[in-house]
């Protein structure tokens, strides 16, 4: 099963579709996922996902917007989609019946008492 950050990357790539590449995925992870994402973490995780066959990457043509530099484009493979769905279903299953109420969110148990 994939890890949490791997899942975020798979989801960002799937969300962006044909426009999935490093900077855009980072933007999605940070704005939608609400967590910081360094390029180091992003690209080393992408390499790992690619080695597992969960994503494919390739270089695009250079663009003017990037000062004539190419993008590393990303596409989620069928295997990657299955792994992401497995992770998502596991989270949904394990969360069923759990209510993250105020009592669980208090920093020290028994504070209310």
């Amino acid at each position: 099963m994939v890890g949490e950050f791997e899942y975020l990357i798979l989801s960002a790539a799937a969300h962006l579709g044909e426009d999935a590449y490093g900077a855009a995925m980072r933007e999605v992870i940070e704005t939608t996922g609400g967590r910081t994402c360094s390029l180091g973490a992003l690209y080393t995780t992408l390499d790992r996902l690619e080695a597992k066959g969960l994503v494919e990457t390739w270089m695009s043509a250079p663009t003017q917007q990037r000062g004539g530099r190419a993008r590393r484009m990303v596409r989620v493979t069928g295997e990657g989609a299955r792994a992401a769905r497995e992770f998502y279903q596991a989270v949904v299953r394990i969360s069923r019946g759990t209510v993250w109420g105020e009592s669980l969110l208090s920093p020290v148990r028994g504070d209310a008492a």
Partner: protein
Amino acid sequence: MRGPCGISSAGWRCIEAAAGLLAPVEREVVLGDLAETDRGGWRGLGDVLGLASRRQLALWRNWRPWAASFGLALPASLFLMGWSVAASGAVASLLGEPAQASLLWLSLSRLFLVISWAWMSGFVVSAVSRGTLWASVLACCGPCLYCLSEWPGHGLSGLRLLIFVLPGVWGVWRGRRDVRLGPGWAVFLAALAPLAPLMSGKGGWLHCCWLLWPGWYLAATALRNQE
């Protein structure tokens, strides 16, 4: 003057310099990503350095950097410094008595062995682990600087100690260019390697025998490439 995405020109130059630590393709991708997002110079620099550190850490999970720096560069520098002193001593004796054929033979053979050993070690260090060459250079320079600082003025001038440096750098340069040695040359160097321990006389045998591996590594990889 401003660089891309609002980063100052000096900041962007720093980022580009730091990106030199990355592989060329990755460098272009990362600089492109930074150029199209507005995250400031410090964060950009942090991104580049963070990625470079992660790449280095990944390299050190393999046996190759350890073998290149601590298994070869470090012991070879000690061995080659000793041989540089021996070779330069033989040459100095020859200059004192130029008519002696045995001294001529001794000087030439020692010089030849130092040069070929240094070239071979540099080549193997570079071929085994190109990405961590900096660590191998440090492992080689450490003992050299120690010896130069510890025994100044004992007849061990830098030139006498460091005869091996130039051929070593040449070997590193050839290894970095992904030059493949022909099996003939590789086997020749592998066969030459044991001559140094044989000529080293008393002591240092274990150390010298340990240093036979680069020769056999060269021969094995050249023969495998031939297949």
